[in-house]
């Protein structure tokens, strides 16, 4: 990771969640947040950009899991082991197992608060000390 702020891609179709999290990141100078409204748009971005993390809605569940599989297989430009957090309406045992296999670090179950999303960003992608000081 470079000495600058980490770059994290947020793939979230809900504009209210996406826009507010992006605004909070700007105001509090957290991660550099890139935004995508769909898995297709997010994957296009990841094919040409190097992100340090992924915050992913499972609204498009199958497409999202396929993207994560390709990420972990090294088919995208980012490192294969970047931290990934997932937001989902509900999770059964099968999904939880699959997410563990894909090394998902954090699972946010809806209805979550934006505060929880921001805390996840802070914990998974902390600021370099030089920027915090």
């Amino acid at each position, binding site marked *: 990771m470079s000495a600058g702020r980490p770059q994290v891609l947020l793939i979230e179709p809900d504009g*209210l969640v996406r*826009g*507010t999290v*992006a*605004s*909070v990141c700007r*105001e*509090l100078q957290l991660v550099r947040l890139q935004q995508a409204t769909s898995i297709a748009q997010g994957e296009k971005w990841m094919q040409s950009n190097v992100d340090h993390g992924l915050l992913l809605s499972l609204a498009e569940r199958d497409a999202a899991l396929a993207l994560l599989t390709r990420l972990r297989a090294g088919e995208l430009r980012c490192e294969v082991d970047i931290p990934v957090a997932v937001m989902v309406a509900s999770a059964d045992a099968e999904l939880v197992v699959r997410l563990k296999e894909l090394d998902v670090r954090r699972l946010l179950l809806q209805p979550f608060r*934006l*505060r929880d999303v921001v805390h996840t960003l802070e914990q998974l992608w902390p600021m370099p000390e030089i920027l915090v000081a």
Partner: protein
Amino acid sequence: MIKPPLPHNEAKRLKALRDLVILDTPPEERFDRISAFAAKEFNVPIALVSLVDHDRQWFKSSFGLEDVQETPRDISFCGHAVAMAKTLIVPDALADPRFADNPMVVGQPYVRFYAGALLRLPYGQVVGTLCIMDRRPRDFDKLDEAILNGLRDLVVEELFRREEAVS
């Protein structure tokens, strides 16, 4: 109670508000969705998109105060926020001389906590607030303020989407 002072640019501010052509229009889902989201996020009973007119504050969206469309400006918390030109946070209205005997504090809806983020248009005029209220005193940290400001940004976007559509 201390009545809210008038901002120094009140005439320009009111013109900017009128130019939005939004006063006294029906409720709209795009604003109601944001106020409902704010109420849920902060676990408060009331969240408003409040526009501060000449002698009233009028609610484009009023989660938790559905039967109230406006109140006099001189008893409004939002009037103080607009005059201060910055986010107004009142942790306990009963402990604040500006609001301790305010009719909205000592009577319905019994406001104890207030936080209002300014609806500042891109050319600088402040037309109102996105605000939340609670019936109990509470703290409001820097992250809470950033989240409220983020939701406020979405309200401003919607105000302008409308203005663009009208002009």
